[in-house]
């Protein structure tokens, strides 16, 4: 295991080309030891290719370093990596014990040592006593745990997880999520996992890499990526967002006054974005960050709207609000008391904290990776 603080995995300009098509272009990142990195993005964004490049299954340009060692000449079976595959890939003709002990066997351990460590690993994933069961007789959740045990028992330098939870049903998925996190914290193994499920990424990751079209759009903590998305694509992919074009009218101290044509005016925190009057911008506001209040006194920085629909989703109510220009926004209201006073047709004001207004310079910024972004 590496000393804390050192970089367990480093990628230096890794690219993968299939003919002329770039599955990965110029990916560079550093992952400190003992952290969990989530690779998140839509299908085809290259996240699995990236994972497999670290594993050594995909030829690539650029360098991969594991524990400061360059992996260029190191074949996959010598990289000391543990991996859990999307279909678990348990060896069907072997027992649970034989599956888990496989890596230890390859490393030449003695039978007694293997048996002991297998038992330990089974205890770690909560499946004591299942040594002699045949791998193919296990349920999905059990297979997943065995796959995890198999990957961890060899004390790998890096643990790779390829969409580990996608084959499980919702309840099991949430259970396994916390399991995986607990096990990772316990063992301290550096982990990279691939997922297309945002909740999973946000819940499990210490660091999140958002990818699209083979490129790395943003790397940061889940909070950073969620609250300060680097590009409009990131803003729209992670979580929901109401998008609109606006024009910057005035700069007032730490705020910028933005006019949403036909809708109203709001204030946005300026932060590091270079904004100037008359500049066209794109605005993204998350549904859960909108406060919906009955229209009482006039408020220059609130947007007038009417309640068009309400949907009860258990955890919160989802309001569809019709703005002055007849388009709609979505807002989530968790407080039932507030929500109960907002029947369909009620005139309301939508208020947003300036800090929660996500702004990108330039108009028509939807879904363009690589556009001008907040650093």
């Amino acid at each position: 295991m590496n000393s804390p603080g050192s970089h367990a995995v480093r990628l230096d300009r890794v690219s993968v080309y299939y003919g002329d098509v770039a599955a990965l272009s110029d990916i560079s990142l550093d992952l400190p030891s003992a952290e969990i990195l989530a690779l998140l993005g839509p299908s085809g964004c290259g996240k699995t290719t990236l994972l497999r490049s670290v594993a050594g299954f995909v030829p690539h340009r650029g360098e991969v370093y594991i524990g400061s060692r360059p992996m260029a000449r190191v074949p996959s079976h010598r990289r000391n990596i543990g991996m859990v595959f999307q279909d678990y890939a348990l060896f069907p003709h072997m027992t649970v014990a034989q599956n888990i002990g496989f890596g230890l066997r390859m490393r030449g351990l003695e039978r007694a040592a293997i048996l002991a460590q297998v038992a330990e690993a089974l205890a770690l994933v909560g499946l004591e006593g299942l040594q002699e069961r045949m791998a193919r007789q296990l349920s999905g959740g059990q297979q997943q745990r065995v796959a995890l045990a198999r990957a961890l028992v060899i004390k790998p330098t890096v643990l790779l997880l390829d969409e580990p939870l996608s084959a499980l049903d919702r309840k099991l998925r949430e259970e396994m999520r916390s399991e995986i996190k607990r096990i990772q914290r316990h063992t301290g193994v550096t982990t990279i996992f691939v997922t297309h499920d945002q909740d999973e990424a946000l819940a499990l990751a210490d660091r999140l890499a958002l990818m699209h079209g083979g490129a790395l759009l943003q790397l940061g903590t889940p909070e950073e990526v969620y609250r300060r998305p680097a590009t409009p694509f990131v803003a729209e992919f992670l979580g929901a967002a109401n998008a609109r074009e606006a024009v910057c009218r005035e700069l007032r101290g730490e705020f910028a006054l933005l006019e949403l044509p036909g809708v109203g005016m709001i204030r946005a925190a300026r932060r590091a974005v270079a904004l100037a009057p008359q500049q066209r911008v794109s605005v993204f506001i998350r549904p859960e960050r909108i406060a919906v209040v009955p229209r009482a006194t006039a408020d220059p920085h609130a947007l007038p709207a009417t309640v068009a629909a309400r949907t009860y989703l258990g955890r919160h109510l989802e309001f569809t609000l019709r703005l002055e220009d007849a388009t709609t926004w979505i807002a989530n209201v968790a407080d039932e008391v507030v929500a109960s006073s907002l029947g369909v047709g009620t005139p309301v004001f939508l208020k947003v904290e300036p800090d929660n207004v996500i702004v990108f310079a330039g108009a028509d910024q939807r879904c363009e990776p690589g556009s001008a972004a907040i650093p």
Partner: protein
Amino acid sequence: MQRALPTERNATPLLLLLPGLLTIAVFFAAVVTTGATSLLDAQGGWSLQQYARFLSDGFYRDFVWRSFRIAGYCTPITLLLGYPFAYTMSRSSPPVRLTLTLVLVVQFFTSYIVRTYALILVLGNNGIINRPLLFLGVIGRPIPLLFHEAGVAIALILVPLPFMIFPIYSVLKNIEPNLAVAAASLGANRTRTFWEVTFPLSLPGVLAGIVLVFLFDLTAYIMPGMLGGGYFNMIANFIQEQAMAVLDKRFASAISIVLLLVTLLILYVIHVLGSRLRGASG
């Protein structure tokens, strides 16, 4: 779940394929040499004399016609016998299916010679077909099945049955059972369901079976040889005679190449038909 494979650029697949390709190379060399031999005339020069000899003489054409004729009427009968068998196999309970499978597979793996010889015993004048019929007075004289077309035909119908049954069974068992249920729920009775849903879907298997059996019958050697007793030779017997008895390898080569080309032609036609079928059924 298979991942899409990138196109390989190094030589690994080629190395892996080498022994297999070498084996095929020997095979091709043999065919080519035969082709070359067929182009030699009696004096040793290059010509199409052997082909002309074969294709012009009525006597030889009779062989060809006879072989096509018998293959032509035996194959449909094999289909008639084989399809219900395959259907039953695909729709039966596991114990019945297992029994049928065992019988079928044992047939398939039993040597042609053994099976043909067994038919000799059955079809002969003293065989279990003639003896009871004679005994019961149904017929006055034994039915001449051996040494006649009838005996050979029976053999050509029965021996290749596995080749008809396997492809049809394979397709039938993969047909979605829900389709029949859907048809029934829409009001179709069993017969209509069969003819309008099941049978059309099984056509690829039927086609494969027909081709295999037809070619088997056309190029058969053992059955006409053992059951025809020299009185009912087919193309394959003729080729062997020319090569080994008459020792006219050049002539035999020419006939072989003709037979090969006919076989390839039939396979090609079926292949095209099969693609059309697949295209049409979608």
